[in-house]
């Protein structure tokens, strides 16, 4: 799958390859109403990664339903909507509207965006607030709910466990790690918001560790992401306990990366005489 905020609505990549080869596309974060996002500059390159502070720029759920959904509904892959909000009511409102869309098989509940002032990550950093969002959304949304977890917490397994208890169907992690960058010469921050979310290979070891911890704490499927650039990276996430993976930032460097990773995983299975990719889940050998 491709990660939210890094693959647009899929349309942006159609020129490069047949996107139906993907397991799924998680579209941009969608909120209750139009959001302009944060001021420029919103991006800074950092060693083996990047910081972003997009701030959930999107035209709101009604626009999505009316204008974007008709364009993307017939893509022959799982189109999941990343649902974000500042209040429990906003999450609920967006989820209820997406629930009406026949061709959207599930949502990814983003309770981990570090780039908005209110809500967002705050919901994903404490058990009671995570529980309140999922509990409310579960009541209005009857298809698959994947909950996207924040790495900016001390005990991610505890939150995953709480989320599972409220009826989440799967969890995905990690969203970006809170970070910042300064230009020493001008003494100014490189992002308009000072802090932003770190992604790319720089976060991979942290992501891998968290996927491993969470997979031991929950029974629902775990979707791993954070810094995947190659098939080997993806396989590491599977071995740590993920049932599926998402690719984000790597799409910017190689728009074809996802299909290369899929092919590389198949080759790996063949080489190791493994019947199906899913047999890799949790296959790390520790003794």
């Amino acid at each position, binding site marked *: 799958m491709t990660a939210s905020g890094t693959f647009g609505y899929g349309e942006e990549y159609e*020129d490069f390859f047949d996107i139906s080869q993907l397991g799924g596309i998680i579209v941009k974060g969608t909120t209750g109403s139009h959001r302009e996002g944060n001021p420029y500059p919103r991006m800074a390159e950092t060693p*083996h990664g990047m910081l972003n502070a997009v701030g959930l720029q999107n035209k709101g759920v009604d626009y999505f339903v009316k204008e974007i959904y008709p364009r993307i509904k017939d893509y022959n892959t799982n189109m999941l909507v990343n649902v974000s909000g500042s209040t429990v009511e906003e999450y609920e409102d967006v989820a209820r509207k997406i629930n009406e869309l026949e061709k959207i098989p599930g949502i990814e509940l983003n309770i981990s965006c570090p780039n908005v002032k209110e809500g967002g990550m705050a919901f994903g950093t404490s058990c009671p607030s995570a529980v309140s969002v999922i509990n409310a959304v579960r009541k209005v949304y009857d298809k698959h709910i994947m909950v996207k977890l924040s790495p900016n917490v001390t005990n991610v397994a505890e939150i995953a466990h709480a989320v599972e208890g409220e009826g989440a169907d799967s969890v995905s992690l990690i969203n970006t790690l809170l970070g910042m960058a300064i230009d020493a010469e001008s003494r100014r921050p490189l992002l308009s918001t000072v802090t932003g979310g770190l992604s790319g290979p720089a976060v991979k070891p942290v992501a891998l560790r968290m996927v491993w911890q969470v997979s031991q704490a929950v029974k629902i499927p775990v979707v791993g992401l954070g810094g995947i650039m190659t098939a080997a990276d993806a396989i590491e996430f599977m071995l740590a306990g993920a049932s599926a993976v998402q690719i984000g930032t790597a799409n910017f460097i190689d728009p074809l990366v996802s299909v290369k990773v899929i092919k590389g995983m198949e080759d790996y299975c063949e080489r190791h005489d493994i019947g199906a990719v899913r047999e890799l889940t949790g296959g790390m050998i520790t003794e």
Partner: protein
Amino acid sequence: MKKYIDDFIVTDNRRLNGEYVILTLELDRDLPEILPGQFAEVKVDNAPNTFLRRPISIHDVVEEKRQIKLLVQEIGEGTRVMGSLQKGDKLNLVYPLGNSFSDPATKEVLLVGGGCGVAPLLYLGRKLKEKGITPRFLLGARNSEGLIALDEYKKVGEVNVTTEDGSMGTKGFVIHHPLMRTDSPVYDHVYTCGPEAMMKVVAKYSEKHGIKCEVSLENRMACGIGACLCCVTDTKDGHVCTCTDGPVFDSTYLKW
């Protein structure tokens, strides 16, 4: 316009001075249509700290030779590695990206460039010339050393220059050139690319005289294809992507 991802082969690296090179890249088949003002996202291999692709304008296109030219100013690791590429090296490009400069309403045009912002103006000038319009260039630099590849521009149109130290052409900034000091300018459409401060004064002058002014922005980009929303600029319609709605904008549309 359809976007491509292709490996090009470097067939020439012409060093202009300590800071600038022109790379000639060749494709093994016909090039798709490329419009003036468009850019490519260049993957820089063997640059350990250069993680993302680098946006670089299309400086020129030689269709019959399947060649693209890039004018590169070496300011950091990514551009320095590009500057050190040798004949035979491979370079991967996602291209052609972005919108383009629009056609002028009349034949009277002025193309104002500064620094590496002169890059897209050569191909624009060539396309205008093909339409029977003689482009009038106004190129500015700190000193004569910074005025690059003037020979190429002279082949395409009329070249005027300014230098801050007066070592060539009119002394001062582009805005001090007689072409921009007059109260009755002879052109109806201004195209500009370069440092933001320069583009702002050019835009202000144009707006004051009721001339259409198109500016080409160089915002920081990650994807270059409209997928990440990192490159936005503020406009009358709110935040829009520089990589897909731009890089060329009508100056009056921008809030800057």
